[in-house]
């Protein structure tokens, strides 16, 4: 299943400031790194290694810390959007 199948009812323009639009109105995601994560994953059009994603967003922190932060970030984004948008396994996310 592709991310397009999972993330239904949203549009996500990236030409300009990135914003998520739901069916009715824009969804405010107050997480700049969350937006960056969504943009990167959507542009990748496939699975991205968790380490790559985490290092991209938190370059200065230790590995275990950034993996935990990434987990929390994914959870918070799904909470905000109100549905499952990521496919994850132990090593990658899409």
């Amino acid at each position, binding site marked *: 299943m592709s991310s397009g199948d999972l993330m239904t009812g949203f549009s996500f323009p*990236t030409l300009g*400031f990135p914003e998520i639009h739901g069916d009715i109105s824009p969804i405010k995601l107050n997480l700049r790194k969350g937006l960056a994560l969504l943009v990167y994953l959507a542009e990748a059009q496939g699975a991205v290694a968790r380490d790559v994603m985490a290092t991209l967003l938190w370059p200065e922190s230790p590995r275990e810390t950034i993996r935990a932060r990434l987990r929390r970030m994914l959870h918070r984004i799904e909470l905000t959007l109100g549905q499952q948008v990521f496919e994850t396994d132990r090593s990658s996310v899409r």
Partner: protein
Amino acid sequence: MTLDSHLFESACDRGEFEQACRLYRTDFLAGFALPDCAEFDDWAFFRREALRGRLMHALERLVQDKTAAGEYFAATAHAGRLVELDPLSEVYGRHLIRSLLLAGDRSSAEQAAAKGLAKANKRLFKESVSLSWKLYMKYRVRYLRTFIQRFAREAVVSFLIFVLLVEFLLHQFHIELFVSGVAVLALAYIAEKIVSARLRTRRRQSHSRALFNGTRDLYSDYLVFLRARAIAQVATLGRDRVVAGSLSSGNGNPDETIPMQKS
């Protein structure tokens, strides 16, 4: 999820350049940055430049197609967008002036030529000031930092030696004081070595990053300078020819001219 950037690229791949140019409202992630994530910003920068490059290519094709089809007003609109994207490009400036002349709008063509020259001069001045300021700050900061570090190190050691001497002169020689003084000096020396080693590592990392950014900036400034000089020359030439009633088509053959249409 389908992204507009992907739709834009698909339209370019299919050769639907008008559709592609409509989709490209503004730059990729315009106004969005993560200051503490240099890698992400670099990725976004290169992606933005790639998309801009494709847009420019699409607009160039549109200008050519519209001109060939005799739709000069449409060609003018696309050429105008090209000039907005790269105000210092002599080629795009020439596209715009040509399209305006072919559309019979001679006064706008003259204005475009003059505007191109003014913009080029302004940008050239701004860039040269900015480049000089960057270089000045870079060297000033580097020398200032070295000076402060040296001064601090010398000051600490001198102060400790001074204290030991005063102790020796005023209170005669005490072996405990002497030993403790030497110990403090040794500790200070070791601490300084550790700190400077750490600083060196950090400096090396930040230096390599600064070197990359600096090289990129300098390269881009140099390109801007070259383009500015070229457009300034071409704009002057173009203005003279517009005034004279004809304009070179810009393919390197000065004999080939486009006759002016009477408005």
